[in-house]
């Protein structure tokens, strides 16, 4: 497909640094994939301290939004401020929305828990309405998995029956990927000295309110009592977020680990802040990854990037299931179901230690090779390069929708 001669815009509320994680890493990968297929890419973000290659430039978001012309390929992240969205939508700029992560499904449970009913109601309605309006308006929607699409359709249904109904025709699965380059392997042991020689099961990210580490902690108590050398290591000793409330699940997990007597014996919380560049060492020196989800809608719609890290490292995973990527990994033979009780989880850990995991590791590497950024972004690049993808004007966007999002 021929790349468009016009500028391709990626708009996101990000501050891009030299090291990019999660959504920022995705934006950078998208820009790079589009650039290599001949697009002239402008990153319209809040700030960019990153050195950009030729063919990719940076423009402050507010300026970028003003410069976009109808017909330009535009890819938008749904977290954009309403005033920026409004500027695009009222000019009926056709756009694609990168919904790889449906934030409202993460927040479903959080708002009522952390805010007063009035604030929770306002925040929830505003967020869901913004996502619904974008899903209604977007010509093309990129999601991580089909469950997100069904959830979005539920959000859109009260606003527009026809746009909810045709959502599958506008959606494309473009999940997060893993780096194109192989993981470095010659790295020093990064874990505390007392873990030297012990099989480490790595919890490779934060503990968020929608996860459920308690069965794991109980399982490691059982393993400790059985004299197993297995150790559970939480790479993020705290959730480094500007929102102090987000550290609460981590504090609760620590308190629970202390209360059952596993802290510092079979369960360890990282005392250091691990940066993205430190991650490969933790991955290389772990025995396997471990993840336990609660049975929530968030899990069913997630795409756990910490599992992608394991695929990059060629490490097996012990998982609760209930999330699309771990289900995919189980089918590919790179992950093992942990079981639904602490006893079963403990048995699974011991089973993994006693068995040969070479095949699982090789399956993980093979699956990882099929999920590199360049491969997962292929449909997005093709779709953004279609000659008529951004042709004409977008649907009419009413002022009342704007105020409904703004005031919720």
């Amino acid at each position, binding site marked *: 497909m021929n790349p468009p001669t016009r500028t391709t815009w990626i708009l996101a509320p990000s501050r891009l640094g030299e090291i990019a994680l999660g959504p920022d890493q995705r934006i950078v990968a998208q820009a790079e994939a589009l650039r290599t297929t001949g697009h002239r890419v402008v990153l319209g973000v809040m700030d960019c301290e990153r050195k950009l290659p030729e063919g990719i430039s940076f423009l402050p978001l507010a300026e970028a939004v003003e410069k976009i012309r109808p017909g330009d390929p535009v890819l938008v992240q749904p977290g954009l401020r309403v005033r920026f969205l409004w500027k695009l939508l009222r000019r009926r700029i056709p756009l694609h929305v990168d919904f790889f992560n449906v934030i409202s499904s993460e927040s479903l449970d959080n*708002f009522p828990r952390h805010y007063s009913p009035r604030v929770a109601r306002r925040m*929830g309605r505003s967020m869901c309405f913004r996502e619904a309006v974008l899903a209604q308006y977007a010509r093309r929607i990129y999601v991580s998995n089909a*469950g997100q*699409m069904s959830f979005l359709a*539920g959000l859109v*249904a009260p606003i527009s*029956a026809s746009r*909810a109904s045709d959502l599958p025709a506008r959606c494309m699965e473009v999940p997060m990927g893993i780096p194109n380059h192989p993981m470095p392997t010659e790295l020093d042991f990064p874990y505390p000295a007392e873990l030297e020689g012990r099989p480490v099961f790595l919890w490779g990210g934060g503990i968020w309110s929608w996860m459920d580490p308690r069965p794991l902690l109980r399982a490691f108590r059982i393993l400790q009592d059985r004299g197993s050398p297995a150790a559970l290591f939480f790479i993020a000793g705290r959730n480094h977020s500007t929102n102090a409330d987000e550290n609460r699940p981590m504090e609760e997990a620590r308190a629970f680990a202390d209360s059952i007597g596993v802290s510092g014996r079979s369960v360890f919380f990282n005392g250091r802040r691990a940066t993205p560049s430190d991650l490969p060492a933790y991955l290389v020196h772990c025995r396997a990854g471990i993840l336990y989800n609660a049975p*929530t809608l968030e899990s069913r719609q997630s795409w756990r990037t910490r599992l992608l890290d394991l695929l990059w490292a060629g490490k097996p995973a012990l998982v609760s299931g209930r999330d699309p990527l771990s289900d995919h990994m189980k089918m590919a033979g790179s992950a093992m179901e942990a079981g639904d009780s602490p006893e079963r989880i403990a048995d699974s850990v011991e089973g993994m230690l006693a068995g040969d995991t070479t095949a699982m590791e090789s399956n993980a590497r093979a699956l990882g090779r099929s999920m590199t950024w360049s491969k997962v972004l292929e449909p997005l690049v093709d779709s953004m390069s279609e000659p008529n993808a951004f042709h004409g004007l977008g649907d009419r966007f009413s002022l009342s929708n704007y105020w409904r999002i703004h005031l919720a």
Partner: protein
Amino acid sequence: MERSMNEARPVWLLFGGNIGPMRLGPAQRTWEIALRAAREGHPVHLVLDSWDVEPPAGIDIERLHSGVLDKIRHGDAVIVSPYIRGRILWRLMRRPIPFHLDFYCVTAAEILEMLPDWPRRERWIQRFRRRVRYATLLERAETVYLSNAHQTAFLGGLLFPSPDPSQATLAARLPSKVQEAPMGCREETFPTGAENPYPTSIHGRPVFLWGGGIWRWFDIETLLQAFVQLQAKGSPAVLFFLAGSNPTKESVHDGPVRAAIGRARELGVLGKSVHFNQRAAGPSQLPAYLEHCAAGVMANPASMEALCSWRTRLLDLAWAGRPVVTSGYDPLSGIFSRFDAGILTTVGDPGALAEAIDGLASAQDRRRELGENAALLGRKMSWSRTLAPLVEGLSSEGAFRKTGAPPSFYWLLRYAVGR
């Protein structure tokens, strides 16, 4: 009054509707649940709007009215259809009766397709009432039975924009109360040896059977275009619509059938490679049509209805050991394809569909191979297996204990005025 520990738990199936000697779809499901519960030793009370069938031992049939609720004792197993009359549901939800919800089909996804044709006020009321009904039932039900994971996500999305934050919590935790118990495949041996029921003009030709109604949400255009191509290239394949007229009493479903016949005529395939049944085919005639077809066909657009569906006509094909050729994804066609019991082609692509049909029409061995796999799949998806979570729930000691908060009169008011 509490039942004693040793007493088998009575089962109340509040389903409404009609059950006759020949059953399809929801009626068959209701019957299968009742039979299985009775087989497990539960005294079964099947509560319907009407019936013309003699119940087997262990099953009592009663008429659905609010007085039935007075007979339910604490701890009895109660399974409710979300589509029974609102008045009965309201009374049920106001009482502290724990129940499970047999929500196998989320009609909201079907309604999405029909809403644009309705008057604005009716549209609003339909949408609003459905959401209120779903939200309240999902809140009150202890366990919810659905057909596939898309239905759970769709319901979660529907609940979330509610002004009541507790419904966001309900949406978030919905998967913890959902169990998948879709429609199943018949277990009795498929009857063979019936006479060929198709018009004599198509005897000897490979018939591709559209084995149910023509609803608004199907992609009939792609299917007809595929047969235009097949006819043009001289393929013997013939498409037969089992229901040549609207099989329901609802006039809203007349349009799609008329449109399909008109379009087939316009394309020059009517009576040649495309036939509409001139007779009303009842459930008892279905096996003959299945036995004498080469394969089934299905055509879905890329829509939420298709994604949330569970096409029971495919289960009929599995029962008969016939494969299916499907254009556009739906969950059950996806399973057929993965099991090598069917062929799934790209949505809205008549060429690909025609090629797949032509391939099967001319390759009897391949058809037989796919058909054998379909029969095997049917056994894996028998009623006993698909309803196992529901039937196990009936005797689970911890089940039928929890009730959510009863809906307020404000709920009733909102439901009544549709706001």
